[in-house]
């Protein structure tokens, strides 16, 4: 019985319940909001955020105040690189994936090296990297031929593929399964939690702390890059600063998923729910006809309210 109550109190269940609640509220405010196609489309948008949040999640789990503010920059950069490498041709997709993943991994690697070997706080390192990437975008956009998504990619992101759901949602599910497996059933996963929870103890137990932390940042870059590719599939063509809107929401999705910003605690399943919750909330606010000022106030206040369900810090007095 207590077990049942405990399960019900896990962040994932809370998040799913809140999503359900939000959908009902949305349907009441604007009929049609919770229709199956609309939910499917919301899932596409959530998947984009969720994939960025996957990397963010890993970095945060690894502890030592892990956080990656550069994901937005990587998403933008990747979208532009992808657009140019595929240039509207399906044949270019593999090259685009390769190029973007390599770029994302390289940027993440630099972040990781700065954070581990030079011991720069992650917030500072990735904030600095964000500034660099924004500059790089401007430079790269000079003299590039074009940036159109291949039809196959657009179809993958927006058109039903299996059981009425587009490929990107299946990709997201696969990423979810992959990370669940990685975190719970592999040595690498155990080591992520170990360094996030007690880095010194992990080192004394033979965990290659630096290598793992660097790999987490690299993975964050890779996931952001994948999101960038998907994003150009979603919007059809690349444009500047597409990724900016993912930076802080990716962190919020992770927090709403029950992962502690202190590291070592949490997982990706919750983050997926967190990403959906955020997307649904934003969707509702778009459909309600009120002033933008009102939308923002409601959005901010609702975020605060929802946060009360999650990851509150420990009380000083036990």
């Amino acid at each position, binding site marked *: 019985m207590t077990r049942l109550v405990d399960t019900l109190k896990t962040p994932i269940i809370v998040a799913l319940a809140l999503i359900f609640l939000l959908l009902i509220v949305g349907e009441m405010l604007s009929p049609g909001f919770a229709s199956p196609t609309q939910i499917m489309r919301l899932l596409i948008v959530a998947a984009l955020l969720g994939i960025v949040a996957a990397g963010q999640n890993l970095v945060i789990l690894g502890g030592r*105040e892990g*956080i990656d503010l550069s994901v937005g920059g990587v998403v933008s950069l990747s979208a532009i690189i992808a657009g140019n490498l595929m240039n509207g041709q399906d044949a270019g997709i593999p090259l685009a994936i390769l190029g973007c993943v390599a770029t994302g991994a390289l940027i993440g690697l630099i972040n990781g090296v*700065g954070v581990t070997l*030079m*011991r*720069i*706080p992650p*917030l*500072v*390192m990735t*904030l*600095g*990297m*964000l*500034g*660099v*990437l*924004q*500059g*790089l975008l*401007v*430079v790269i956009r*000079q003299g590039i031929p074009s940036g159109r998504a291949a039809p196959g990619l657009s179809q993958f992101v927006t058109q039903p593929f299996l059981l009425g759901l587009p490929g990107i949602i299946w990709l997201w599910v696969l990423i979810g399964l992959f990370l669940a497996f990685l975190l719970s059933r592999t040595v690498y996963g155990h080591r992520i939690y170990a360094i996030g929870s007690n880095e010194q103890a992990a080192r004394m137990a033979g965990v290659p702390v630096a290598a793992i932390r660097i790999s987490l940042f690299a993975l964050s870059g890779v996931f952001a890059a994948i999101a960038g590719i998907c994003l150009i599939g979603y919007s059809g063509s690349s444009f500047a600063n597409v990724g900016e809107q993912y930076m*802080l929401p990716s*962190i*919020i999705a992770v*927090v709403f998923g029950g992962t502690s*910003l202190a590291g070592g605690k949490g997982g990706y399943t919750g983050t997926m729910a967190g990403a959906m919750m955020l997307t649904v909330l934003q969707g509702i606010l778009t459909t309600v006809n009120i*002033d*933008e*000022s*009102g*939308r*923002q*106030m*409601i*959005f*901010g*206040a609702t*975020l*605060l309210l929802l*946060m*009360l369900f999650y*990851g*509150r*810090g*420990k*009380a*000083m*007095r036990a």
Partner: protein
Amino acid sequence: MMVDAVATPPRRPGGIKRFIEAYPFLPALIIMLVLLALNGIWQPRSVSLVGITGLIKTYMALMLLAVAQTYVVYAGDIDLSAGAIVSLVNVVIVAVMASLGDSGVSVLAAMAIGLGAGLACGIVNGIVVAAFRLQAIVATFATSIFFTGLALWVMPVAGTPAPATFWRTYGGRILDVPFVFWAAALLAVILYLLARTRHALQLLAVGDDAQGAYQSGLPVTAIRIRGYAMCGVFAALAAFCITGDTASGDPLVGGKMTLYSIAAVVLGGTALAGGYGTVVGSVFGALIIGLINSLVYFVGTPSEWQNLVQGLAILVALVAGILIGRRARA
């Protein structure tokens, strides 16, 4: 066996190290002076009286916002809503002055209300983070959205002009000395005095070890709320400067300043983890950002490369500052 301990004397930092330990803003000061010199070499007029006045006039707001951010960082917190508070206070005072007309009284009333608004925002942040115990990064991001909405509600579109009394004073001279120099001097005095109150010490103690501070009997929650309140007040002061320099209300004016204020704090040698740092360093940090931006232009960087070079220079300065600071302490 009875424990005894005689071996391994504790590490005592030597000359320079001790100096930097005592004055953690030194690396920032040096970087700033070097940048100033480089600016002067590439564009002599940028270090003339007019040039320096312009520099201070423009970056006074960021200096103040960096100071604001420093007080929360002292306690190990962070405020991602600082820029939104600047926007909100900016539109509030402009709206108040617009409705009260162009007079000294109206300006003073607007400033009082603006300080109140900043203070209120700071207290809201403090309560949300310290009393409700939400994670500072995400909670203040949420409040920043809320404050921005509020600013848009107060002034739906940028543009209402501020009365001339206000910005002519800010841009003018008193006793033949530019107003901003007086403001900078006043700021220095205020920072010096604040550093001597117990607030700074208590915030640093909380940032060092919150549990320890609590167990020692310090009112940790109240101290953290106070840190956010100070942040709100200084953000309001930053908004005054923005208003003085721009002479208008803009509900989005401060948005981009938040991340710069954090960068300035780090550049100034303050530890983001809390417990260590100085507000003076943050002031230098803000100037470093300004000087990098103009230097990149003065050396003739092609326009499409300017953002990249600035980004790289700031990243390098951040990393260098942290490495130097650590060297000094190790």
